[in-house]
């Protein structure tokens, strides 16, 4: 099987900052078309394409836009470029290869909801992407490609939780990046309490192509319920640790063995974690699953950010998960009790297991805590933090058992 490049079709062939380059390969035609449409028709078109958020929740983009009250005087389009999931860098790649498509996508969203102000919130780890995007915005503005639509680029400062849309909004407002409770959802009261659409880079970048080629074209690519392509980033014990754009009906096994070139150093496969550090660990037996949102959901995993971390047979699962719990302990914002204290204690207990000091009782406590974190945390961070723990205890329990006292 081959890649299917939509977003990355002209990767390395055009200057991503240059609106002129982008226009040469057909750019900004989608926006032109969008602006000629009635808002409702535009939203319907996007709905019809079946485009779903390429971030965490996989929500239908057009549907999300339709919740925005049309009569609000001020509305915002916010791009989430805070891809903090370890092992993920696809949004960076999209920006580095095709930044103008992102800008065009945001402007299309602006046209749909009636907003003339966009924000891109770029993670602090990517200062060079911030520069690139600022140049790209200038180029597009100078070329008149964006019309009245303005885009401001803001830089985060090292907080994974800001990938959560309401935390991201808080951060743009200059606050601590603590998630808000929902409702109200950003579509109703988001940035500076105005209706706000937050989508990630990949979602926005799909829009020009949907507009140009039509909703049906897009809906026909990949999995029916989660159509389009997905950019994946492969890391870990894999021969080709790089990025790929694939249709969403691609199978996990093919990602690893075809595109990824199989396990490094001729070793055997042990597990793969998809969707970044908050994803579930998937054993060999589930490798024939399609990568689309729903298929992954069916095996208790998630496509998430599209990060694919492959572990070979020699890897110590408990050690890896212990490290992952440290990540969440470090990145919890501290607002809600289950996450602030839970990530801390989870990390403590996992390290206890990893150091061979834990008992079966501890393992019970770990599962008890995991369940409550998943059900009781305020935002997705705390809800997802225990997933790697639970999924590995489910699929690789023997690795834990052998470390108990």
């Amino acid at each position, binding site marked *: 099987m081959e890649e299917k490049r939509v977003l990355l079709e002209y990767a390395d062939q055009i200057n991503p900052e240059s609106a002129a380059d982008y226009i040469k390969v057909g750019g900004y035609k989608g926006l032109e078309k969008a602006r000629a449409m009635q808002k409702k028709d535009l939203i319907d078109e996007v709905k019809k394409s079946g485009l779903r958020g390429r971030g965490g929740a996989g929500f239908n983009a057009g549907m999300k836009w339709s919740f925005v009250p049309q009569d609000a005087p001020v509305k915002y389009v916010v791009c989430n470029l805070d891809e903090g999931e370890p092992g993920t860098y696809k949004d960076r790649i999209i920006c580095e290869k095709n930044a103008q498509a992102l800008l065009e996508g945001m402007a299309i969203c602006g046209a749909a909801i009636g907003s003339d102000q966009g924000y891109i919130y770029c993670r602090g780890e990517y200062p060079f992407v911030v520069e690139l995007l600022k140049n790209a915005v200038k180029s597009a503005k100078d070329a008149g490609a964006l019309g009245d639509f303005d885009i401001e680029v803001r830089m985060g400062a090292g907080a994974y939780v800001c990938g959560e849309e309401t935390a991201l909004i808080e951060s743009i407002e200059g606050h601590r*990046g603590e998630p808000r409770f929902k409702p109200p959802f950003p579509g109703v009261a988001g940035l500076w309490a105005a209706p706000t659409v937050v989508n990630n880079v990949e979602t926005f970048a799909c829009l020009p192509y949907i507009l140009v080629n039509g909703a049906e074209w897009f809906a026909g690519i990949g999995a029916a319920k989660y159509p389009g392509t997905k950019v994946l980033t492969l890391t*870990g014990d894999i021969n080709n640790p790089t990025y790929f754009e694939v249709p969403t009906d691609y199978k996990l096994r093919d990602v690893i063995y075809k595109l990824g070139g199989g396990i490094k150093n001729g070793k055997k496969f042990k597990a793969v974690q998809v969707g970044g550090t908050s994803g579930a660990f998937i054993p060999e037996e589930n490798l024939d699953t399609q990568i689309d949102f729903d298929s992954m959901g069916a095996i208790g995993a998630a496509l998430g950010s599209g990060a694919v971390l492959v572990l070979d047979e020699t890897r110590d699962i408990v050690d890896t998960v212990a*490290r992952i719990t440290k990540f969440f302990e470090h990145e919890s914002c501290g607002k809600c009790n289950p996450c602030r204290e839970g990530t801390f204690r989870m990390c403590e207990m996992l390290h206890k297991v990893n150091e061979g000091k834990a008992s079966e009782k501890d393992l019970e406590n770990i599962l008890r805590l995991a369940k409550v974190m998943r059900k009781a945390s305020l935002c997705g961070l705390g809800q997802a933090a225990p997933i790697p723990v639970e999924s590995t205890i489910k699929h690789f329990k023997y690795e834990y058992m052998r470390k108990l006292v």
Partner: protein
Amino acid sequence: MANYMDLIASQKNTKGGIIEAFHAIQKEYNYIPREALTAAAKAFGMSEAKAYGVATFYSYLSVEKRGKYIIRMCESAPCHVAGADEVIKAIEKYLGIKTGETTADGKYTLELTECIGQCQATPVITVNSEPIFNVSPEKIPEILSAYK
């Protein structure tokens, strides 16, 4: 060195832009001096306590003086499985400091970071946000000696 008041003033019209102001201050000073934080808080109509809360929330902002070169070692899972632990030890040994510390000469500060999104070339470190790919314990002396 740019005056922090000017740096703050340059962001004054950025709505809610105190974090942008902090970035601008840090770019010059490598940390946020107390007076600068107080001035930024005032400029953005925020209490000093709240501005301090913001500055201490984000890993990349610091209210404590740091070295000229801030070395960050990524320790997220992809780098972890690629041997980040060994690299950290090598850096600590080379600089003679522990993670979180600054060398006595004020030149280097060593911090850990979560994923910096350069996972095509693990393990990765950054020096003043510039990523350096595929590092290994053996390469550390050569890499760091370039930062004088």
